[in-house]
């Protein structure tokens, strides 16, 4: 194991990165590659943050490997390495099934255009106009328009079209009709444009390859090491207290949640009244529930699709999707092709969820609710795999409480914060010299691609500070 205990770390580094989500890993790698001495600390025993997996009875379950955009190919080549890039493969069989429509798609612009014109009978000009408008959206555009207004402008009264275009994005980053149209446009143009991709070999393989690269670049990695406090003196970062040890560093990049970073690690006293005012409107995003189904060794599943967006709710409804008893879930099917050489099948059902609904439950109710959720997921999956119950030999559920426990994120948020969080994340440094935040914020900087790209952006800021 390349990992050290914090007791073996040096007394001083150029930069300490707190947290090893994809954002933290990427910042650490970039900074080490630029010649800085980097310490990476992670409270869990494994690196990757939400990009993680677990093993049960010969099964390997991936948590957040349902699909990522085409942009990951270039990003992995530039900021990691060619071998990582070469393991990215396309998922060709994406299914939508709900009371309004059932379709199968390759999830790219051409196919969506053809579905919208042929199947939904929308005129071609509106479809092209929509794609061009969202592709042209950027961060500096008008932020007052909501996604609902955007949809009403292009596809007025077409609840079915809105559902097709919104549902995958709600699963991908928790956003909905009320979020700014630009966040929708930026994510949509990345995601529902050139297909959905996955990592051949699974999340474990990706993280193993990333760790090799970090080692090559000389990053010191300490797992089972929880940062307790960022030490700040007269508006400047001095170092970090980690499991009772003080490590000196002039620069700290926190991959903990943005609110955790401000409240728990730096402390509100380190910030100006003006900055604290900016934090007030910051809302964390929703959390998730998942049901993991392991298929008995020797059994096989027919190909019913790679990613199934399913719902029996009559229409897209954000509250319905967050409800504990939601009838909307995605199924990710992992065939043996996911991990060449590991001849097993697994299925993961994912739902959006509210932390508060689950946090309040007494233990016994909590266990019962998990069982009921597993049951509902099986009932839904039987529509596609009728004998799923006979084939399954492992069933387990995760809830917002699980995500909170493993990542420490405020309310177990799966996708960081809503849009306002980005500005806060980008300006920590104005109040505390040497302090940076990386990780899911602002909707557009979440997901595997968003987190990695944000890692690069923050590495550039930190590098500028370190060389100033």
């Amino acid at each position, binding site marked *: 194991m390349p990992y050290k205990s914090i007791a073996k770390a040096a007394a001083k580094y150029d930069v300490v990165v707190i947290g090893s989500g994809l954002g933290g890993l990427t910042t650490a790698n970039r900074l080490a590659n*630029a010649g800085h001495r980097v310490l990476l600390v992670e409270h869990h025993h494994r690196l990757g943050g939400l990009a993680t997996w677990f093993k049960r009875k010969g099964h390997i379950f991936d948590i957040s490997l349902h699909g990522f955009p085409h942009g990951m190919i270039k*990003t992995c080549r530039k900021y990691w390495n060619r071998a990582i890039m070469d393991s990215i493969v396309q998922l060709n069989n994406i299914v939508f099934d709900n009371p309004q429509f059932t379709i199968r798609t390759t999830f790219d612009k051409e196919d969506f255009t053809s579905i919208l014109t042929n199947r939904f009978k929308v005129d071609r000009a509106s479809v092209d106009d929509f794609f061009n408008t969202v592709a042209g959206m950027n961060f500096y555009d008008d932020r007052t328009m909501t996604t609902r207004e955007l949809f009403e402008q292009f596809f007025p009264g077409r609840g079915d079209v809105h559902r097709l275009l919104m549902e995958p994005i709600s699963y991908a980053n928790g956003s909905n009709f009320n979020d700014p149209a630009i966040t929708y446009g930026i994510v949509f143009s990345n995601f529902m444009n050139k297909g959905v991709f996955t990592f051949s070999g699974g999340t474990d393989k990706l993280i193993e390859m990333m760790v090799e690269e970090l080692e090559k670049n000389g990053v010191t990695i300490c797992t089972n090491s929880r940062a307790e406090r960022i030490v700040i003196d007269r508006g400047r970062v001095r170092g970090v207290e980690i499991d009772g040890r003080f490590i000196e560093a002039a620069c700290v990049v926190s991959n903990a949640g943005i609110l955790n970073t401000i409240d728990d690690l730096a402390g509100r006293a380190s910030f100006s009244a003006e900055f604290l005012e900016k934090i007030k409107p910051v809302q964390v995003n929703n959390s998730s529930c998942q049901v993991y189904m392991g298929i008995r060794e020797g059994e096989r599943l027919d190909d019913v699709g790679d990613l199934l967006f399913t719902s029996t709710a009559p229409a897209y409804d954000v509250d319905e999707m967050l409800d504990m008893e939601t009838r909307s879930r995605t199924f990710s099917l992992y065939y043996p092709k996911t991990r060449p050489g590991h001849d097993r099948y697994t299925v993961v059902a994912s739902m959006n969820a509210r932390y508060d609904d689950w946090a309040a439950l007494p233990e016994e109710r909590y266990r019962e609710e998990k069982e009921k959720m597993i049951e509902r997921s099986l009932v839904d999956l039987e529509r596609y795999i009728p004998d799923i119950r006979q084939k399954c030999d492992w069933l387990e559920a995760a809830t917002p409480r699980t995500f909170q426990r493993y990542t420490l994120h405020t309310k177990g948020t799966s996708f960081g914060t809503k849009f306002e969080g980005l500005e806060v994340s980008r300006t920590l440094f104005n109040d505390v010299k040497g302090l940076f935040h990386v990780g899911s914020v602002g909707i557009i900087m979440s997901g595997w691609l968003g987190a990695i790209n944000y890692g690069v952006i923050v590495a550039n800021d930190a590098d500028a500070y370190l*060389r100033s």
Partner: protein
Amino acid sequence: MTRDEIKDVILEIIQDIDEDGEVENLNADEPLRDQLDLDSMDFLDIVMELRKRYQLQIPEGDYPELASLASCVNYLEPRLKDV
């Protein structure tokens, strides 16, 4: 550095970023973005690489100066004259 040397450095950095891009026949006055497959992340890479090589700090407000090959050279010439 001379203007030609600066130009060569920029082309070398771009070639690293966009391996398949045809950097030989670029029109110096046209935006790089229109001629190569470059996005805003790529421009960030150019900034970070210049800082690494020459300790040159390019503030975010100046990023538009890097739009074309000619504007890059104009912007960098006075800043890299002692390199």
